[in-house]
């Protein structure tokens, strides 16, 4: 099952600059192709340079993510008991955690290809799922990689990503909730910070 995560590799995708009016499927496709193009040529990223992968994600992908919404979904019902200041810290820390995870996945990219499934945007829709699929050369098993996007203003923003049916956002709900139950919002903030610190240490080592 873990292989699902593995392949988040090619994926993480949903962002390219200034693509304001792009339809959600076009947006996903454009950014995916753009990022994979870069990764394919970049030996550093392929050999595990997380730092470089993070830079790539920051520039290409992040502008199209709605982190506030993601964090809210992950923290779920405890969100309301967090003060605005706490909400901001939570969002920042969760942002860091997700970016690091994505970037790590990108460094695991080998030569999978991404297939884009047919998509039609119905009139008036503001919340959609764009389906893609990771294909591994040779081996039979494909992994579904779906993006949930929401229209905010003129632009579409990604607020959830599912790999093989596992949401990278809501998968945190239970552990976040038990963190909050045991030691409150501040406890959750502390463990996120600790996690991000330890992650930083390992990515510097690389």
């Amino acid at each position, binding site marked *: 099952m873990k292989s699902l995560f593995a392949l988040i590799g090619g994926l993480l995708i949903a962002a390219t600059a200034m693509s304001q009016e792009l339809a959600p499927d076009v947006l996903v496709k454009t950014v995916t192709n753009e990022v994979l193009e870069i990764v394919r040529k970049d030996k550093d990223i392929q050999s595990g340079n997380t730092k470089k992968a993070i830079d790539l994600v920051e520039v290409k992908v992040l502008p199209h993510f709605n982190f506030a919404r993601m964090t809210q979904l992950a923290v779920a019902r405890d969100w309301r008991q967090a003060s605005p200041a706490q909400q901001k810290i939570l969002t920042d820390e969760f942002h860091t955690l997700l970016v690091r995870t994505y970037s*790590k996945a990108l460094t695991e990219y080998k030569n999978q290809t991404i297939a884009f499934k047919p998509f039609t945007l119905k009139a008036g829709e503001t919340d959609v799922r764009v389906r893609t699929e990771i294909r591994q050369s*040779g081996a039979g098993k494909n992994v579904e990689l779906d993006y949930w996007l929401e229209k905010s203003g003129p632009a579409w923003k990604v607020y959830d990503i599912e790999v093989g049916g*596992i949401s990278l956002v809501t998968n945190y709900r239970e*552990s976040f909730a038990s963190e909050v139950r045991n030691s409150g919002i501040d406890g959750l903030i502390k463990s996120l910070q600790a996690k991000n610190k330890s992650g930083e240490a390992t990515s510097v080592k690389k």
Partner: protein
Amino acid sequence: MKTTLPARIKTVAVAIAAAGLLTGCATSGNPKDPIEGFNRAMFAFNEGLDSAIVKPVAKGYEAVLPSPIRTGVTNFFANIEDLFIGVNNLLQGKVPEAFSDLGRVVINTTVGLLGVIDFASDAGLEKHDEDFGQTFGRWGVGNGAYVVVPVFGPRTVRDTVGLVLDIAADPVANHNPERTRDLALALRFVNDRANLLPADKVVEEAALDKYSYMRDAYLQRRRNLIHDGNPPREIEADAGSNDHPLTAEAEALEPRTELAPVVPVPSMLVARTQLPVAK
């Protein structure tokens, strides 16, 4: 040796299980995981087994064999598995899927040289993922408690029962003579683990608490598989709603209605060449 090693593992497992029970089932109150204390102990045991034996062997295997050969091994076992997947699709009333699986076996066993090459996928016969646990899920059997099974890892009560049947029906496990059977089982196990190596780092990077991350990922994944990729979207707990979306999920599986055609027609197989989006 051959008989003592599994026996020893079993002894250790039992000891650990006992320890887990003794330490009390320290639960964090998650209704899906009532025996969390036990499960955590078992998870730690599995992790220990993995890092001491399984992972190093898988790494060696990956280092020694070139990627095309490993792909061949993966495909070979996947082909055997397709037969079993077809049976499960049939039990779930998904007749076109079952025949597609059968088609895969026929193509891959012949043109694909005993399954080593997966021509069927190239030909548009999509690979499915089914097992008895999913079949029970389809039939409306609920998950039951989450349980970490020694060596096999995360399951639910339902999927553990499924696992027992999976093993009973596994052509590889039932192969004679025993010697080749054991070799084949070992090879499949190591190969499967090797395929997961790239995922390790990502999970380490992502998980705040690896135990619960793996647990929740398993539960989400199974839910998705039972619904063949289209589970009802969970109610969004937008900070507001009181019922916890992950626990308030007693959704019944809507029975599939399109069970009608019992005799497969070629057009069904042809239809499979499309991506299964509109399923």
